[in-house]
């Protein structure tokens, strides 16, 4: 019984729920709460899948007279649970080491090639015409990097907005949120809506950082900077400037500019946030209370 409920929960949370959530752009109005919901769904799905495997395995193994069929069921169920855990750990290690190695390389090159911006402490400037702005997240020594092309392209207010946006990524450790969903996507690329989750969470952390920039500099500079940097310097995009053909990855920009243009509705957003966070908490607590506790009790009895 327990195993069945948890298995259904795992399937629903891994497939239809993320696929459905990704089609609800209204959630982007409350990005913090939405990110919490995505994390709760992912965690609950993993716990339910592992729980289902363990529940089925113990249910059979604890029987008075386990026949050969029971032995097979125990092995398969325990195998499923172990596969989920092992795949997550292995991919976590793989993705983590790869990302950190790349960051180390970027950091060492940026530190040697870039110079510090005189007016903006902590900002590194790379001498290049292609307009780019990014941050290099790290535990202690994050860097915000812009090119001279960006400085030329943007007004002072727009540049400040871009830097505020990148600093928000650094402060909020948004890279860790993205990394977690990257790991899930890598571990379960099929049968699970892990792609939808990763794409939507990527939009949400950008919206979060945009909000932080808007609070300091207003929505106009953020929106202008977004369009200017997505467009490049008028003759060519940043990518073409260094010989890359990367057209067609600007989906998030449109959603973000769209959100910047919406009128604020503080009360509705607050209600939506509260509802989402409550739902996220319920998602993690209810299965534990309703399903797992009776199962644990039955094991003990």
């Amino acid at each position, binding site marked *: 019984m327990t195993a069945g409920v948890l298995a259904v929960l795992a399937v629903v949370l891994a497939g239809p729920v993320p696929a459905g959530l990704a089609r609800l752009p209204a959630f982007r109005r409350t990005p913090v709460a939405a990110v919490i919901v995505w994390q709760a769904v992912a965690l609950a799905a993993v716990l339910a899948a592992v729980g289902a495997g363990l529940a089925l395995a113990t249910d059979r193994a604890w029987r008075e007279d386990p026949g050969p069929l029971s032995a097979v069921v125990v092995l398969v169920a325990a195998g499923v649970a172990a596969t989920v855990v092992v795949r997550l750990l292995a991919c976590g290690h793989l993705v983590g080491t790869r990302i950190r190695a790349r960051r180390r390389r970027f950091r060492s*090159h*940026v*530190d040697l090639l870039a110079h510090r911006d005189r007016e903006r402490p*902590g900002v*590194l400037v790379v001498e290049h015409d292609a307009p780019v702005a990014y941050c290099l997240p790290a535990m202690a020594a994050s860097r915000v990097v812009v090119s001279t092309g960006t400085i030329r392209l943007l007004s002072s207010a727009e540049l400040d907005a871009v830097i505020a946006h990148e600093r928000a990524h650094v402060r909020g450790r948004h890279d860790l949120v993205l990394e977690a969903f990257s790991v899930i*996507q890598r571990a379960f690329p099929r049968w699970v809506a892990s792609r939808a989750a990763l794409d939507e969470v990527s939009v949400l952390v950008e919206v979060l950082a945009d909000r932080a920039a808007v609070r300091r500099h207003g929505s106009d500079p953020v929106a202008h900077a977004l*369009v200017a940097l*997505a467009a490049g310097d008028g003759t060519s995009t940043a990518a073409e400037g260094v010989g890359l053909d990367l057209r067609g990855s600007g989906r998030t*920009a449109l959603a973000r500019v769209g959100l910047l243009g919406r009128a604020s509705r503080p009360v509705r957003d607050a209600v939506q946030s509260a509802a989402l966070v409550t739902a996220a908490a319920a998602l993690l607590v209810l299965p534990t209370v309703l399903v797992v506790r009776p199962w644990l009790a039955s094991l003990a009895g």
Partner: protein
Amino acid sequence: MVIPFNGRLGELERAVMDHLWDTCDADPAATVTVRDLHEALEADRRLAYTTVMTVLDRLARKDLVVQERDGRAYRYRARAGRAAMTAALMHDALEDFAHDDRRTALVAFVDVASPDELEALRQALDRVRGS
């Protein structure tokens, strides 16, 4: 929160690379010895000869400096000129942003837009201005 450079060793690496890049800009095939570098760097600071060797070793491991054997000594040069390495850095960064799987090392401000997307973006921007 944002600490730009990692202390004295980082500062020395910069000084060494600046020297090697200046050499490279003057003559791409030119190489220098540890002694040359030590003399050049000692003008601004007190520095042990072995420290220069350590820094060069680190830079060689980071693939920024090329080590060439010349008899019993080594000669060093930057792997590429400053401009070429900057271009390579930009190329790597933009390629990283474009990773479709988003397992990215960097967090870019914005993705590159296609012409259609740009048109839609400009219309959306007008609505922001109007609001």
